[in-house]
C-alpha cells in the first residue's frame, strides 16, 4: 500500500506543530486571524485546503470524521476529503453528525446541535470580513488593532438604504466577545445563531489566505445589526419536500424546465434520519410512511 509513504494524516510533523500553535493562539484570542504558513495540499485552493490542514493537525487515530459540503455528505468534495483521511490517517468516517468527533464543513453548520467532544472545522475562502471594503491587508490589520469597524456598519446601512433590509444573506459578519469582527465563512445567516454558545470547538482554516481562527465553546458571538433593523436568520418559507421539516435550512432545486421546483434540507444527514423515522414531505414517494 503506497499510503504508508506518507506521515500519519499526510502532513509532516513540523507543519502540524506550526498549525497546532496557530490553533491554540486562535483559541486564546477568539475571532482574531492568526497567520500560518499554509502548505500546498494535493487539491487546488478553493477546495478546502485550509480546512484539510486544520483537520490533519487535529485528527487522532481514535477519531470519527464527517465531511460535509453545503450540508451534504455525498458531494464530490466531501467524499474525496473523507477518502483522503481514511487513507492517510486510517480514521473511521461517518455521515451521522452525532457519531462524528471531527466534522469538516464547507458553508454549513449541521442542524443537530453539536456536543462537547466534537470539533467543527470550517473551510474558509476569504477570512477577512473587511476585505471587500478595504483591499489592503496593512489597513485591515490596523482596523482590527484599533477596533475600527465603522466601515462594516456603513456597508450594512447601505444595504438598508438600497434594499430596505440588510441584504447580506451569507458570510454575515459577527462580533466575537465584543472585540473582533469575524467572517463566519460563507455559512447562510440562518446558521449564525449556532456560532455562539456552541458546545463544540469551532476552528476556521483559510488555506490560500493563510489564516486560522477559532471560537472556543460557549463564546459570545453577535451578528452585527441595528436596533431598528435587528438581525433576522431567515430561511426559505417552506417545509422540506422530502422529510417535512419546517425548521431546517433548505436548498431550492429546479426540477424541470417548466418552473417546477422543490425544497429539500441542505443537511442530508438530518433529512435522511428524519425520513428513516417516518417523516414525510410533499414529494415523498407514496407508501413510504406508515
Amino acid at each position: 500500500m503506497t499510503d504508508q509513504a506518507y506521515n500519519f494524516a499526510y502532513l509532516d510533523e513540523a507543519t502540524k506543530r506550526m498549525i497546532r500553535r496557530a490553533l491554540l493562539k486562535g483559541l486564546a484570542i477568539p475571532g482574531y486571524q492568526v497567520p500560518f504558513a499554509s502548505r500546498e495540499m494535493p487539491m487546488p485552493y478553493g477546495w478546502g485546503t485550509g480546512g484539510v490542514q486544520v483537520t490533519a493537525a487535529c485528527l487522532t487515530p481514535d477519531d470519527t470524521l464527517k465531511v460535509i459540503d453545503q450540508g451534504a455528505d455525498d458531494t464530490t468534495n466531501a467524499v474525496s476529503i473523507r477518502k483522503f483521511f481514511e487513507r492517510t490517517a486510517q480514521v473511521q468516517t461517518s455521515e451521522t453528525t452525532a457519531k462524528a468527533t471531527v466534522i469538516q464543513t464547507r458553508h454549513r453548520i449541521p442542524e443537530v446541535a453539536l456536543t462537547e467532544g466534537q470539533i467543527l472545522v470550517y473551510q474558509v475562502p476569504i477570512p477577512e470580513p473587511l476585505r471587500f471594503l478595504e483591499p489592503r491587508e496593512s489597513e485591515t490589520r490596523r482596523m482590527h488593532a484599533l477596533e475600527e469597524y465603522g466601515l462594516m456598519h456603513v456597508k450594512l446601512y447601505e444595504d438598508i438604504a438600497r434594499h430596505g433590509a440588510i441584504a447580506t444573506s451569507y458570510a454575515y459578519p459577527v462580533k466575537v466577545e465584543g472585540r473582533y469582527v469575524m467572517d463566519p465563512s460563507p455559512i447562510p445567516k440562518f446558521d449564525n445563531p449556532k456560532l455562539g454558545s456552541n458546545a463544540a470547538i469551532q476552528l476556521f482554516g483559510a488555506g490560500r489566505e493563510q489564516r486560522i481562527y477559532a471560537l472556543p465553546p460557549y463564546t459570545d458571538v453577535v451578528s452585527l445589526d441595528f436596533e431598528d433593523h435587528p438581525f433576522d436568520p431567515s430561511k426559505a418559507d417552506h417545509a422540506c419536500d422530502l422529510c417535512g421539516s419546517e425548521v431546517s435550512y433548505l436548498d431550492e432545486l429546479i426540477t424541470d424546465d417548466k418552473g417546477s421546483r422543490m425544497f429539500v434540507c441542505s443537511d442530508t444527514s438530518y433529512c435522511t434520519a428524519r425520513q428513516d423515522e417516518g417523516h414525510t414531505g410533499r414529494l415523498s414517494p407514496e407508501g413510504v410512511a406508515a
Partner: protein
Amino acid sequence: MFEAEVLSGGFSNPAQDSARAFRACLEAMARPGRIQQIVGAVPPAPLSPAAGAILLTLADATTPIFIAKSHDTEAVRKWIAFHCSAPVVVAGEADFAIGTWDALQPVSQFAIGTAEYPDRSATLIVECEDISAPMATLSGPGIETTQTAYLPTIDAFVANGVKFPLGYDCYFTAGSQLSALPRSTKVESL
C-alpha cells in the same frame, strides 16, 4: 553520564502520540480550568511528564524557549535540545517558557504580542505541585457559566486579562495533568 536519560523519554509513536497530546492541549485551551490528561513523554526531573509532552507537541527549532531557574538543569537542557531542537533564549524572546510560577517572575518580562499581531506572545508552561484544588472562579470564552480551577495566583492573571487581546497564555502542569488559562478568561478568587 546523562545519555540514556537524554535520548529516551520522547514519544514512542511520534505522529499519533503528539496528535493525542495536542488534543489535550486543544481541549485545555478551549475549556479554561478543566483538567486534561496528557501522556506519552518521560522527561528528566524536574520537568513533569505533562510539560514534557507539551514541549514535544508544540516546540521545535522555530520556537525559542526560556527555561526558568527552577528547571534549568543540564539534563533538562539536553533533553529539550535533543527532542525539540528548540533554541534556549532570554525571557523576552521566548515563545514558550517553562518553570514554576515563582521562578517565572516577573511575568512582565514575557512577550504579550502587539496590537496588530497579538498572537506573537509567549505561552507559559507553569509547573505546579498539584492542580486539582480549586482556588479561583473562571468565566469567559470556553466556559458555559463558571468554572472553578487551581491557579498559582489571582492578581497577575487579572492584570493579564485586562490587556486583552494582548497577553500571555498559560498551561498549568502537574504530573500528567494539564489545565490552561488563556488571556481571554476572567479570573476571580473563589
